[in-house]
């Protein structure tokens, strides 16, 4: 097991290096640089600024500098927001994105697993139909449209109640978390409930399920001890990509609901070609996702003994 985790972490580190390199060169391939975005600037000032940010050095040297700084955990200073370090920006805005993301993942997981199980239990009866239609709708409607619709509904509700039942946008209170989180998690929830339904159907017709019933196991005990534990495995496999999709998909929701998360800063930074912020956030997100995938892999082993023991031996 330790061996397995070590190997996963090592390949994770290589992946992060790859992400950093790809980001670095992709960004330097962009025509222009952050300084050309500024207003007309005398050559002297420009040279001074280039020297400050190291833009006057050859590309390879810049790359080496960036890499060594990154190893020390220093992503440099933002080009557009004077004197604000990238680390500060991440430290300030990532917790907001993370809170939103975690809430969305939880909603998607709990909702997807329960809806999928309910649909499988009521196969071809109306709860199943309702869930499947909702799933199809949620999969085919883009997230930003759902976000917009959610805002419309909130406004309509507030108008009907003639008070502010729910805030339309913003960040800070609990009620400002769960609506965006629901919107963010909805697509994933639909996807997961589809997987859950299929795997629960398989479990329901599996021999061990009938055998468990033949032992007299029933009700919630049957559900939690035998059915859920087996049926949830494919959902857990999807957890890594799911978290990736939710964290990176968060910035649309952040834009629409005016949430000051890291995603919004990323979009802004790309538009302004703020090298250091782009590099910092991309590498940070990449590292975060790699870590999540490793964690999900490990947790998969905890649920499925076959994988745990297999890995333990190898």
């Amino acid at each position, binding site marked *: 097991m330790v061996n397995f985790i070590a190997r996963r972490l090592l*390949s994770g580190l*290589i*992946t992060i290096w*790859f*992400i950093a390199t*790809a*980001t670095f060169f*992709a*960004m330097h*391939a*962009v*025509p222009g640089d952050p300084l050309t975005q500024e207003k007309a600037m005398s050559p002297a000032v420009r040279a001074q600024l280039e020297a400050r940010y190291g833009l006057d050095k050859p590309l390879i040297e810049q790359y080496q500098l960036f890499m060594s700084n990154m190893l020390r955990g220093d992503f440099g200073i933002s080009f557009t927001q004077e004197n604000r370090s990238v680390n500060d920006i991440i430290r300030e805005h990532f917790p907001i994105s993370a809170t939103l993301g975690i809430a969305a993942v939880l909603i998607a997981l709990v909702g997807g697993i329960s809806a999928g199980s309910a649909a499988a239990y009521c196969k071809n009866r109306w709860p199943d139909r309702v869930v499947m239609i909702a799933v*199809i*709708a949620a*999969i*085919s*409607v*883009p*997230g*930003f*449209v759902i976000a*917009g619709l959610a*805002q*419309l509904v909130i*406004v309509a509700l507030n108008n009907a109640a003639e008070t502010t039942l729910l805030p339309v946008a913003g960040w800070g209170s609990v009620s400002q978390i769960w609506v965006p989180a629901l919107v963010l998690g909805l697509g994933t929830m639909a996807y997961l409930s589809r997987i859950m339904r299929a795997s629960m159907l398989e479990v329901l017709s599996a021999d061990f399920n009938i055998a468990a019933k033949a032992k007299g196991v029933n009700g919630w005990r049957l559900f939690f001890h035998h059915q859920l534990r087996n049926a949830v495995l494919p959902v857990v496999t999807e957890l890594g990509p799911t978290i*990736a*999709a939710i964290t*990176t*998909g968060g*910035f*649309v929701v952040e*834009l*629409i609901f005016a949430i000051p998360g890291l995603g919004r800063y*990323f*979009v802004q930074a*790309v*538009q302004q*070609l703020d090298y250091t912020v*782009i590099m910092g*956030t*991309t590498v940070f*997100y*990449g590292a975060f*996702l*790699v870590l999540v*995938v490793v964690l999900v892999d490990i947790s998969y082993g905890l649920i499925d003994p076959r994988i745990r023991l297999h890995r333990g031996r190898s």
Partner: protein
Amino acid sequence: MTISVFRFAPKTWGSADDLEMVAPIALPSMASPTVILSATVVVFLLLFVSVGPLLWQQSPSQQWLSQISDGPSPAYSVRVISDNGAWRPSALSDMPAGLKVHAANTEYVRLHWPVLEGVTRYRIYRGDAHKPGLGLAIADTSDNYFQDRLQLSRELYRYTIADADTGLLLLAREIRPEAAISAFEAQLQGLIPVTNNTSQWVELPAHPLGTDALGRDMLARLMAGGRTSLFVGVVAPLLYISFGCIFGAIAGLMGGWVDQLAMRFVDFVVALPFLLFMILFRVAFGIGPGENGIMPLILAMLMLSWPGSARLIRGQVLALRSQPFVEASRIAGVGTSRMILRHMLPNVLPMILVAFSFAIPQAIFTEAFLSFIGMGVSPPTTSWGALCNDGIKTLLSHPRQLLLPALFISLSVLAFNILGDALRDATDRRSGVVRA
């Protein structure tokens, strides 16, 4: 419905040469009502973007300033009026007895009322006459007249004059502005030859789906946008699946260290955060002046989306290589290229088709997403995603402008997904393709 294209069962080496026509197999699920409906939707969408612009010849970028954010409307006549901007009642006109309307058309509403004792500032409210309440306070003035030029439409309004200091309501009147177009605008649109040609009636075009916030015809824009969206949705997957297939096939056929190296590379590309890198690459490929931004978008998708099909094909090739019928044909002395053509290709083609049909909705989604955050096509080129981006700004006042393009995105994604599902079920059931 019978489909003979999907006749690709693994063949034994003895029958390698009689791979010809086998009786087409009926695929019941391919003909289910939902599938037929989805196919109809797809055909409709394709016709909508190809034949549509021929039937509906309005330009998607022409702005009708007199019809901004109009609801769906037929063609109607409007009066051409001269619009000199500022207005005050002429000295000759008498002091009105009550709230007097000097003019009421969709360009301006001119109000005039008697000077009231003790009131220093008037506040003018405008509201929907069918709803209770005063509506919006649109202006404060110390004059006893006012000209409203604020996004008027042909609805029944209630104007209320109140004392700005005390809040006391003074006068009210319901007004329905008459359809009008300024002479300047009318000339700009080519409806009249010269600007002093006022007081005549001209015909404004119909907008079956209304206009957007800049007065452009929604139907024409949806057709133009759909062309971009569907183009990207089909071409990008076509490119990246082809690339992925070639990459995967080479890796699988070469085997050994080439395969190992290639697959490590695939792992890394998969690990890249997709949307972040879509944005990065999209910006990196840049848009020159006058370009529409479709190529950078497709290139970015190509660079990030190929690994899925590469893995799929490599897995298939590896699985097939160890299949008895392939080994048997190798022993029988069949050459590599023949083997690929005769055995590999027929067996992986259905999977590629399925992958392709699922990639289309995904590509439509990605394009919509990028255009929505302003990283997609650049104006004046538009797409359904870009239309959504325009629409979300007026969401609360004119939800139609977001919902219409959203409906088209959802319809196409849904239809392609259902077709993909049916295709997968059909190929799964009838081919003995080995799952990698």
